């Protein structure tokens, strides 16, 4: 219901990680929502569920005076709520003659709810999304406003955001969205106390990582926490390994629709490295039934049972919510190491650049919608994100970092993204729901030892 984007996912219900901008506190209950929500949908009968959703969706359209904006309903939504309140009182809103109404959809239900609403007469005018593949079905169905010319012709929008982040949500070279949340790179977190005790350094090469693993296992500590039952944390390993081994081009080819791209030798090599890690016990023996969204993996990590955790930038706020002492004193962060013989730049980043607002092509008041998007480039909006612990993707973000609850961490993140030659969107988001879900299944099987690396490659090549 796990549908569900974001850290659940479910959906997410299970869905992708990064999709979830959230921290742990936000994500903790998503899976339960998923269970309840989807269960009721399914028990009502698939057909009934669909019709119910179709007519449900909240009131877009109308006379164009009140536009509906769908947003992922987690704790970060207060930033969007403040943005809407500010915009509704602004001169721009008065000029365009209307107001925005925010509809908060519980995280795990977001994706299915948006999908059914967009197919109905009560579709939202503006909606939260993950860019790239996540909006491709809407683009193909002609439901999106192409924002390319609007952005080019508007100095506020054109200069308001980091160009790489704006481009990361593109489809076929066209902009369909405006960045509206913080950046979510995947980071290698480590437990400083455990590292100090065993005289370890954050690994900068794969050999160092293996060396650390050996020492940690000897000390009876699991090297890496991993929420394997959610699958998307497993995906992060493959994303970084393929990038370090073969650069961003390998996945780019797959993303662009060439399934043969899975046959690239670096994908096989990455899967082999994963298998070696799993067989070696780098994730412990129980990771397939550990979840991230219910707080399992973060707790294993914070309590020192595992020394490291490869996770999206929201791990910091997750830990701050659940284990504040650990987050403040012992949580360290580093970039993913290089892999010997690989051609990928060590500065490359994977994860989610951010989330985006897109505009429904059927909106009755495009000026109002575009006016609202401009608010996301404002300093007030960026400051609200900073205060929430996020790092905005606005071009003025660098000046605001000092006021972050943790300036050191915020600066690390900002520099990481700013200096990255390539920022690869989480594969599941890039591929969209259909392929992404099927890929999750194959990754889950690889990590659980149900398929070999070569079987994994063959299965992925056959996905459609």
């Amino acid at each position: 219901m796990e549908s569900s984007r974001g850290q659940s996912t479910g959906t997410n219900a299970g869905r992708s990680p990064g999709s979830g901008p959230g921290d742990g506190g936000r994500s903790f209950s998503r899976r339960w929502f998923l269970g309840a929500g989807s269960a009721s949908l399914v028990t009502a009968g698939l057909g009934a569920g669909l019709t119910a959703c179709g007519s449900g969706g909240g009131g877009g359209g109308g006379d164009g005076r009140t536009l509906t904006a769908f947003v992922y309903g987690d704790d970060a939504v207060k930033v969007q709520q403040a943005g809407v309140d500010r915009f509704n009182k602004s001169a721009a809103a008065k000029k365009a003659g209307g107001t925005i109404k925010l509809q908060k959809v519980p995280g795990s239900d977001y994706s299915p709810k948006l999908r059914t609403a967009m197919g109905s007469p009560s579709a939202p005018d503006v909606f939260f999304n993950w860019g790239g593949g996540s909006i491709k079905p809407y683009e193909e169905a002609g439901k999106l406003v192409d924002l390319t010319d609007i952005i080019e012709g508007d100095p506020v929008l054109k200069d308001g955001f980091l160009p790489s982040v704006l481009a990361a949500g593109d489809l076929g070279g066209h902009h369909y969205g405006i960045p509206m949340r913080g950046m979510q790179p995947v980071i290698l977190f480590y437990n400083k106390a455990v590292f100090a005790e065993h005289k370890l350094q954050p690994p900068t090469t794969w050999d160092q990582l293996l060396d650390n693993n050996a020492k940690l296992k000897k000390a009876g500590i699991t090297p890496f926490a991993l929420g394997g039952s959610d699958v998307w944390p497993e995906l992060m390993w493959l994303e970084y390994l393929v990038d370090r081994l073969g650069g961003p081009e390998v996945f780019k080819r797959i993303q662009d629709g060439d399934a043969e791209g899975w046959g690239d030798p670096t994908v096989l090599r990455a899967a082999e490295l994963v298998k070696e890690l799993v067989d070696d016990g780098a994730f412990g023996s129980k990771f397939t039934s550990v979840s991230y969204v219910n707080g399992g993996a973060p707790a294993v990590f914070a309590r020192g049972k595992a020394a490291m955790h490869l996770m999206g930038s929201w791990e910091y706020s997750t830990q701050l919510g659940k284990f504040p002492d650990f987050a403040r004193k012992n949580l360290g962060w580093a970039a993913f190491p290089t892999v010997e013989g690989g051609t990928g730049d060590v500065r490359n980043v994977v994860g989610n650049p951010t989330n985006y607002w897109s505009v429904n092509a059927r909106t009755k008041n495009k000026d109002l919608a575009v006016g609202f998007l401009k608010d996301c480039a404002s300093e007030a909006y960026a400051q609200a994100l900073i205060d929430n612990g996020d790092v905005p993707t606005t071009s003025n973000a660098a000046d605001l970092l000092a006021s972050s609850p943790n300036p050191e961490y915020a600066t690390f993140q900002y520099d990481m993204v700013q200096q990255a030659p390539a920022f690869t969107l989480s594969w599941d988001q890039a591929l969209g729901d259909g392929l992404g879900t099927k890929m999750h299944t194959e990754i889950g099987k690889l990590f659980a030892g149900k398929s070999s690396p070569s079987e994994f490659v063959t299965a992925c090549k056959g996905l459609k």
Partner: protein
Amino acid sequence: MTVTVEKPPTARKRPAHRASRAGRPHAAWALPGVLFFTFFAVVPMALALYLSFTSWDGLGDPRPVGLDNWKKLLDDPRMTQSLWLTVVLTVASWAFQTVVALLLGVWAAGRQRNRAILSAVFFVPFLLSSTAIAILFYALLDPNFGIIQKDTLGSQSGAFLAIVFVGGWQFIPFHTLIYQGGARQIPDVLYQAAAIDGAGRYRQFFSITLPQLRHTITTSTVLMVVGSLTYFETVLILTKGGPGTDTAILPYLMYEAGFKTYDFGYASAIASFLVLAATGLSLVLVRLTGFGGMRSTREGM
């Protein structure tokens, strides 16, 4: 019968021509029920059946694709696996729940006070929502922080046993209630006669109680089988179909096809298949057990 005409009509003795209708309300009384059933069961089912012949991603209009989804249903290796898992789950759940519920129900049919209290306590799990129960067990089974710190949900057998057990924990109380009711209907005179003939407790159970409960067993079995075919929340919350695809039973596969990959056509085909399978199975069960004949267990008494 003619004699009764002169008497004031009572519920028991009415003229024959009226008696045939007397107990039955006018057909119009069924209207709300029929309408409700039509709108919330028949229409969605018909819609799902229609969607199973289309390709629809939830946007725009469904595009007819003929039998493609049904062909895919036959070819899909995941479908084969899911079907097998569903059968195993159904059989295992049935065996576990029937044995426990039957014994508990027969035991609870006695009339001592402690049994009534215990029966009420047993019934509590059924009052909780499946989601709440699944969340509870998920926490108990947490490999690092639960009460059983084993990788229960990380292996196929462990995950499967957990699902069967949790399902049983939830539904056994309900079936116990059915069996309790059934067992209380058995006339004492049968046991008295058996006792005179020298039959012991076990003989009485196998020769009187079980045969007398056969319709109850059928009812309970049909409910269990159909229930197992739509078993969903527990799987979603406990295992998400994992590890790998080891517990991805049919309803979960349907959910995944519909609400995760947005292949509503294929999901509808799976849903339609489930409806057909459940209907077929319950018909077969009823036919095999002679339940359809509605012969009373009291015949000859």
